């Protein structure tokens, strides 16, 4: 990229809510909206993953298109006329948020709660006992837990485990329709699966369905206090790659580790050592 002069990049001009915006060819409608200063709600989109195009929260109205268009994965075309705030767009986003709220535990999905409020979603209007995703919490090791009650099937963990980051392919979507779940083959436990415990799935999960065990234990003890946590950036000490780490610390104890999405080495992804191998910093006496 750095060798390419900006003069050689072809650009496309589109209209976003009446404002003309010029973006590079190949940009998404969401990118164009960003340039126009319009915020687009997303769930299955992430800066470091290929758009899964599944949640449909980012839909916008494009002139002459029969249906709404997912702005995360639709490329700009010259002359597109886009509305992000029309009644149709508002309705679809509200209904998607209601559908999720009525079927999934969103209690730890902060962004979704914010969007649900903004769009006036009322997930309680689908009868007394609408079907919900009800799964036992899977605690199979000391590194992370899987609480699929909270899973919105955004595909992010699958893509992070697969060819967007780790190339381990330990998990995939199984089943169909409302019965679809994220699963290893035959739901075998993680230690029996191909999982390498990089934790990249945990890092991309938008609803806390995948959670560090350290965070889970604190939440169970009602001692999870994100407002009191500090984040310290450092470099992983294990090998010479130079991955940047963000140590999330509460009460002088590391409670989880992430990596910045915009870090050129990791793009937010780590390996088991950087992600979970912090115990040597704070040895715990074992019985």
């Amino acid at each position, binding site marked *: 990229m750095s060798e390419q002069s900006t003069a050689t990049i072809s650009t496309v001009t589109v209209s976003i809510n009446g404002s003309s915006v010029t973006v590079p060819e190949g940009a998404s409608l969401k990118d164009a909206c960003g340039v126009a200063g319009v915020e687009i709600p997303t769930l299955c989109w992430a800066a470091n993953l290929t758009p899964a195009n*599944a949640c449909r929260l980012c839909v916008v109205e494009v002139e002459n298109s029969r*249906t709404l268009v997912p702005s995360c*994965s639709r490329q700009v075309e010259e002359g597109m006329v886009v509305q992000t705030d029309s009644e149709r767009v508002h309705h679809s986003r509200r*209904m998607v948020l209601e559908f999720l709220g009525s079927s999934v535990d969103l209690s730890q999905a902060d962004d979704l709660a914010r969007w649900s409020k903004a769009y006036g979603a009322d997930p309680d209007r689908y009868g007394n006992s609408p079907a919900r995703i009800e799964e036992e919490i899977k605690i199979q090791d000391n590194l992370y837990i899987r609480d699929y009650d909270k899973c919105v099937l955004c595909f992010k963990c699958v893509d992070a485990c697969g060819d967007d980051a780790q*190339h381990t392919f330990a998990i995939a979507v199984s089943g*169909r*329709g409302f019965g679809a779940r994220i699963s*290893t*083959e035959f739901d075998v436990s993680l230690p029996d699966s191909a999982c390498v415990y990089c934790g990249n799935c945990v890092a991309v999960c938008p609803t806390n369905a995948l959670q560090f065990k350290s965070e889970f234990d604190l939440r169970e003890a009602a001692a999870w206090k994100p407002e009191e946590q500090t984040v310290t950036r450092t470099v992983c000490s294990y090998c010479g790659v130079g991955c940047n780490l963000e140590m999330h610390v509460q009460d002088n104890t590391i409670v989880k580790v992430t990596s910045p999405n915009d870090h050129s080495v990791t793009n937010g992804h780590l390996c088991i050592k950087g992600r979970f191998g912090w115990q040597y910093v704070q040895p715990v006496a074992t019985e």
Partner: protein
Amino acid sequence: MADLHLTEDRASATEVAAIDAAIAAVSLDPAVVHETERLVRSGTKRKNDRRHGLLPALHALQKESGWISPGGVNHIAEVLQVPPAEAFGVASFYELFRVDGAPDQEDDVVHVCVDAACQIAGADQVIADLEAAGKQVHRSPCLGQCERPVAQFIQGRRKPDWVEADAEDELWNLPQKHDPSLKLLKRVGRIDPTSLDSYVGVGGYAALSKAFALGADQVIEEVLASGLMGRGGAAFPTGIKWQGVAGESGQKHIVVNADESEPGTFKDRTIMENDPFALIEAMTIAGFATGATKGWIYIRGEYPLATKRLEGAIVAAREAGFLGEGIARSSIDFDIEVRRGAGAYICGEETALFNSLEGFRGEPRQKPPFPTTNGLFDQPTVINNPETLLNVLDIVQDGGATYASTGTGGSNGQKLFCLSGHVNRPGTYEVEFGPTLGDLLGLAGGATGELKAVLLGGAAGSFIGPDMLELPLTMEATREAGLSLGSGVIMAFNDSTDFPAVLTRLAEFFKNESCGQCVPCRVGAVRQHEMLVRTSANPSEADSQLLNEMDQVMKDASICGLGHTASTAVRSAIALGLIGGQS
């Protein structure tokens, strides 16, 4: 062995043999995996080379073991280099694959259709009787035999699948047999569908010769001039698709969408069982015209006779030099593979079909890009319905202009309709575009009992009342009436129909068949079904309003046509007063 992680489960010797035989039968690139090969670096190439062997391998495993066993999956994963979690994810997507443990019984599984035409013919009783007799029974969505309810399909254990009704009289579903006005169905019942000589004897392969004489560009011109529109439901101009693919370079494909799963639809089965060579010839013409050398027929897994006939016809055509390298003594190469689906309505959506054939879950892709540039294996692809392709034979023979002079101007040529439900002579009917709904019902001997409603276009279509009998069944007239011909379904319901039960099942169909990829359809179809159950299919005014809101998001924001149409029939039934409106 590369870098796949497998559990310790091992396939039995018979499973290994069955899987290896199935994989050997498909045209995979060499299945030798070098020790140094890594999933990371060659993933994409390997996907194209081998992964499309997954569905055939899973079929073989299911047949051998009665389920998709962990050991079997490990063997498949190793041979095809597919991660086992993904292989499991694919297997668990399909109705015909069992993933939740070995069956208690060794015998065959009887799939009994519970969708509308069979439901009103007493499917529940049939299922109860079979279960009382100790059979393994599976409640199935539409099996594509609506003209002979209650439809059954038997999934054989260690033997081929079959349909009892096929053995009795394969042609009783063609009431117009020997009618001289037939064009699409003119060979049905006149030829032996297992004999190439029989097909050639009535003029078979003359159209291919004519196509060679015209040249590829002119064939496309004729198809464009004919105004032929797709018969699968979307009514897209066929010539435009062909022209688009012809203009692309590299490996190209002709795919036949024979995953005929729209409830009420069975016309393509009529064609494939009785006139398989015609479909193969039409595909070959499409390949010649567009420069595609690979043809694929993706046929639904519940069509054993049609599959057998097509596979037999392909072998016969290949032996006679009509398929393979240098077909019919030309310099053109074209060959065809048949791939069986495994029970999933969504795989009739063209991009879901590509994913399924490639060995992935049958989840639709975002469009654009369209199949003409990014189709099967991400390569340029023509995808057509069998009925659509059959029209090409006459278009090539008689010229596009002649074809365009038939029909109504807005809808050219001949059309097949699937008459079922409460009519006297259910079956596949062919007419030149123009007749009304009443005319078609008349052809089928009229309704039995007092006609209350017709489901036009299938489960994705609409209910209309007897006041619509004068509606011409053309693309333009139905569009103007806010309806769709869909795949040509005309399902009649008389005054004995339990409409609340029919509509509740219809909503359950969409709930079960949603692939689950996008939120509007995955949850919306469930909420719609819940509402019908909760209200005993008697939704209040407020319920109807909520249903309209759900319909709007499914129409606007679902990825594919399944979600777009999941509420259409239910809403039409409410508007017609078939359900709801009672206090």
